[in-house]
């Protein structure tokens, strides 16, 4: 017995008929909201979409519209923004880790320099989809989203 859950009030991203069904977005979507068979028009389940925008950033044909109907522009993966943590401002509240839909954040062990608190860090940089939810939810603004210098 299963039941589908939904959040009716959220707006969602939408795939237009420019889609050629390459499936890149489907593989990236952190909530499995995108369905469609190969080389056919894909669709986004409105009740699952969390508006992370990953599909829009990855689509080579710019076939994804954001909730306002504006077409998203593809960005090279190396130019996606990643979270950068200010360890002095951070209060170890774990809100960012909970907010991350891609599960790419981890909690460090206590550092050796006498700081008894565990701090968040990017544990799996490849998994980061650059949604910025961590920075948006951080209560003390300890996270900035920026392109990592080494990857440009």
């Amino acid at each position, binding site marked *: *017995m*299963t*039941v*589908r*859950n*939904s*959040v009716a*009030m*959220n707006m969602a991203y939408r795939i237009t008929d420019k889609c050629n069904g390459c499936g890149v977005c489907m593989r990236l979507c*952190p*909530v*499995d909201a995108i369905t469609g068979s190969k080389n056919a028009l894909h669709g986004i389940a409105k009740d*699952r979409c*969390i*508006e992370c925008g990953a599909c829009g950033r990855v689509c080579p044909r710019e076939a994804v519209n954001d909730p306002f109907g504006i077409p998203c522009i593809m960005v090279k993966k190396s130019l996606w923004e990643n979270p950068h943590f200010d360890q002095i401002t951070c*209060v*170890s*509240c*774990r*809100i960012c880790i*909970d907010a991350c*839909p891609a*599960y790419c954040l981890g909690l460090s*062990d*206590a550092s050796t320099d006498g700081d*008894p*608190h*565990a701090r968040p860090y990017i544990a799996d940089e490849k998994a980061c989809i650059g949604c910025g*939810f961590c920075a*948006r*939810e*951080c*209560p*003390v*603004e300890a996270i900035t989203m920026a392109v990592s210098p080494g990857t440009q």
Partner: protein
Amino acid sequence: MHFGYTGKILTVDLSTREIREETIPDRVYEYYLSGIGLAAYILYDRIPAGVDPLGPENIMGFVSGLLAGTGSLFAGRWMVVGKSPLTGGWGEANCGGSFSPAIKRCGYDGIFFTGTSEKPVYLYVNNGGAELRDALHIWGRDTVESEAMLVSETSANSRVAVIGPAGERLSLIAGICNDRGRMAARSGLGAVMGAKRLKAVVLDGKKRIDVHNRAEIKRLSQTCNRWVQFQPPIFAGPVAAYIGALMRILPVQMAMDGMVYKILLKKWGTGGMNQMSVEMGDAPVKNWRGSSVDWGIKKSLSVNPEAIRKYEKVKYHCYACPLGCGGICSTKGKDGETHKPEYETVLSLGGLCMNADVDSIFHLNDILNRAGMDTISAGGTVAFAIECYEAGILTKEDTDGLELTWGNSEAIVALIEKMIRREGIGDVLADGSKVATRKIGKKAGAAAMHAGGQELPMHDGRNDPGYNVHYSVEAAPGRHTVGAQMYYEMFQLWKVAKRLPRVKPLYFKARKYIADEEKAVTAAACSKFMNIANCAGLCLFGVFLGAKRTPTFSWLNAATGWNKTPEEYLDIGARIQTLKQAFNIKHGIDPRTFRPGDRVIGKPAQTEGANRGRTVDMEKLIRDYYRQFGWDPETGRPKEESIDRAKLRGDEYGI
């Protein structure tokens, strides 16, 4: 359109395996908020009068708070609710960890279970939906092991609330565990879960939580955080005891400011109070018979704040907590690590049983967390058994050869292991001291220190009579997390709700023991305010900072887009209090039976120690408290019209 809460609950019938999603009208949230208020609304209506708490008709729920996931600090508490098998009435248990936002990330404010499953199952909810899965292979395993297994078979990011062997064996003092040892321990709700054969709830949702004004919440959080992070260097751990002793000797008392407590918490966690509490008379000793004289500074030195903290590897923060009072400690146990024992645990397994062996306390904390058994009730029950043994009511034959003398740590460990396994004497004691009294015989009753069946926590109402009031008047009795005179001082509610009485910064101690009406006004304010905090899912230690520094009401307004005044919120708190009381009446509870033992309220008064000569007219305080809510002052029953006011009428649903 609504913000802050999700507007939906999930109901699971374990008998029919039917899972349903229900939309809750916005009006309900405006009337009761989310969290404990929502739970009271659902449970009052839906649990039929007089059902067996361990039967299929009882409903148990896991609820998150309104502020969880909104960016408000301290909003990481989740609550388990249901009809308590321990007290027979309203049951609630409150816990930190990471489970609270997980409920909302699945799209729900609460998940409610009814019915009884034939086979052990667990509920798994992820972004796609919810399903019941077989849990036979996990049944019988401890909470830490179970959590690891469930995480590995679902998702690395799953959040797990799980019962241990104690809950499975229907021990009435069993709790529910998350994050490898944080427990929603009180009210015996682990037994309800065990009776339903629901081993665990596993959540892995990724839904967003919509907030009305995130920028405002962040601004408020940052102001609050500045208070939290202010941490001047303070004295060494063992010195705390001498400060407690000084507080005992002085005839005057300073109104407690939450900042002082916060500084102790941030440095040591709740363990900062281990010795100080005994010295100032806040901690009961020797099953509430002893005092600071029996358990002096030298004896309690083994559990001084530093002795506990030295095992700490890293601080443990619950979700959304900037303070981090918890700790992960290294031990010799199974996994080499365990949660730092809390103050309540150290004192209930320590001073209450005259046990000075810190290693045994660490060990017991670990095995009780793994078994999913409440450390407060376990300690209280052991102390009860020791007193019975010393008085000759229990003999060596009854105890299967255990020498249950005060402070015999080996016997205490062996006894608790027996309680977890329900073996011999352990089976007699596994349901707490009230049930044990029935089994052992009437003579044992005088040693059972409980209120309404629930063992009392480690705060002595002879020192702060406010505790005794709340032990007696709450719908879930015997709880230290609602109110006390000291709590009222720390909440500083008068700074935001002008009607409430202001506390003098310095006063004579004798004033604490006068049963005037103001005591009832402040106690009622604590109940109302803690209902709001439990609706919001805020941590008690967060709101201790004071209503201005931890802006509960402003956070709620910013999250929901409402424009309610603190007074309006406190009225909601009063409504919930009445509804919970009406729940107890509906289930045949006489509120007058919720009284701690005579010893606890100072009848007769102690002859030595910090609380010597102290006794308070509890009956007057309780009558005055009932009046504050418009209940009958003699019986504690809410009058018909106040129940009507507390219930949402059909035409008010606004559907």
